[in-house]
């Protein structure tokens, strides 16, 4: 087993422990609490009125668009991260300092075109 892998074992343990605590607490609460179930109590909450219609209706597509943009910026961040980490070292090793700088600027500039496009298409304007 590599030395490095051992650092991950505690993560596994804390995962187990956390889920154990959560389930234990839930079960304890289930055992301790009273159980008097009435129809009104189990009804979905709609400010005291009887529920109207189906709860799972469809939503604005804006949520999808926001999530889509999140994905793309997330990917960008994930790709930028290795760059940021090696930026210093590479700038030294390659001798040409501007090279590492420029390649990222190209990447960011390309995405910035997309950013402008998305902005102008009004995706960020929630009220519209």
């Amino acid at each position: 087993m590599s030395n490095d892998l051992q650092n991950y074992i505690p993560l596994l343990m804390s995962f187990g422990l956390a889920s154990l605590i959560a389930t234990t607490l839930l079960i304890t609460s289930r055992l301790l609490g009273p159980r008097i179930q009435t129809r009104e109590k189990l009804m979905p909450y709609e400010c005291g009125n009887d529920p109207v219609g189906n709860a799972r209706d469809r939503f604005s597509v804006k949520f999808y668009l926001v999530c889509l943009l999140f994905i793309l910026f997330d990917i960008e961040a994930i790709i930028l991260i290795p760059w940021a980490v090696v930026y210093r070292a590479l700038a030294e090793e390659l001798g040409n300092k501007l090279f590492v700088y420029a390649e990222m600027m190209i990447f960011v500039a390309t995405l910035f075109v997309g950013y402008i496009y998305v902005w102008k298409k009004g995706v960020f304007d929630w009220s519209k």
Partner: protein
Amino acid sequence: MMIQWLWITALHVAPKWLESLVEQLFAALPVWLTSNLTPTDATDFIVWPLLQIGVMLLIVLTVVAYLTLAERKVSAWIQVRVGPNRTGPLGLLQPAADGIKLLIKEDVIPFKADKVVFTLAPIISMVCAFIVLAVLPYGPHYASITNINIGLLFILSVSSVGVLGIILGGWASNSKYPLLGALRSSAQMVSYEAAIGLTIVSALIFTRTFSMQGIVEAQRSLGVWFILFLFPSFIVFLVSAVAETNRAPFDLAEAESELVGGFHTEYSGFRFSIFFIAEYTNMVVVSAIAATLYLGGWYVPGMDWVAAQLPAAYREAALTLMGVTAFSIKCGAILYLFIWMRWTFPRYRYDQLMELGWKWLMPAALANIVLTATIFILGKELGLVRSVKGVLEMAWQGKVFFTVAGFLSLFPILALLNAINRNSRSFNLRAQRTTIPLSTRKVKLSPGVKPA
């Protein structure tokens, strides 16, 4: 200051037996404590970390419990009230009372709900909040539970999964308010998560590692906190962090005083409180990240010097003590800032919230990456910084340069934001007022009457 000096001098003149006691104590501590990175057998890397994690979870749970009390106390103080003061002295037993009350509440599952997912959602939230605690740098290496290479990235990834708990909870309730609340919460969290991801990139240029301990060490080797170099990034991070934890003034989705309580409307009893605990744990985690990335983690300038004044036997112990204390104080300060913000700023509208995330913080984070990279190259060209075997080294001129440049880079960023948002309607009150045409005003004022 005086007390510290007294303490140091006292240690210097301390009797030999005390010194030997400390030495023995350290020798008696199991191997894992000083070097849990190279365990020798199963006990070392199963039993002890397990204990460590258990203790940590216990501590954090207590901290979270008292965080709720602190929040109530501080809010009371800000509003010139007293706050909880009946249970125990100063209301110190209030969290326990709350916990017990919630534990013996009835466990209600709405009949329309999807039972499996309804149960699973809070557990996911809680696990995602707690698992991150294992990688935080509470102090020098043996005071933290584990130090993985990709600590920061791990935190990012777990928090991105954590959103699932919220969205599943809202969906499983099969009720309108929770579902809407969950969608809005998750859209909000997701928006600000992107900003966090990008703003961390600019910090990584200086840290060059994801390891949380490595980030602290990077600041320690320079003797500087990165907030000086990365002030714009810190601002972006802080704002995004508040939004990411769904706290006021960004608590749109669960604005309990105006709307119904968001994704956990249908949750009651201890199910609700698990969400609650997860939320507060996330606050702790986020403040810990901010403290680590920008405020030096457990490092305080001068602590190495103080430790060097001590006899060798105490050094580790003193460093640990100082480190853990410093870390707690920093986290506490940021947490206090969170609570303070809640009672100071009015709530945003949802469109303002999205706009702030996408039109202000996102370009700010992007511009900051570009600026930080440029400043770094500049500093390098000027010969102010060099790295020796991967460790950054700079003289005071370099530090001054980066600090000044870091603060100055705030201006181009602000100029950019101003330029691109000049016509923004969400944050420009004058523009908002003029958009309401006179003809549509409901209240017609008779001539001669001035509006109040």
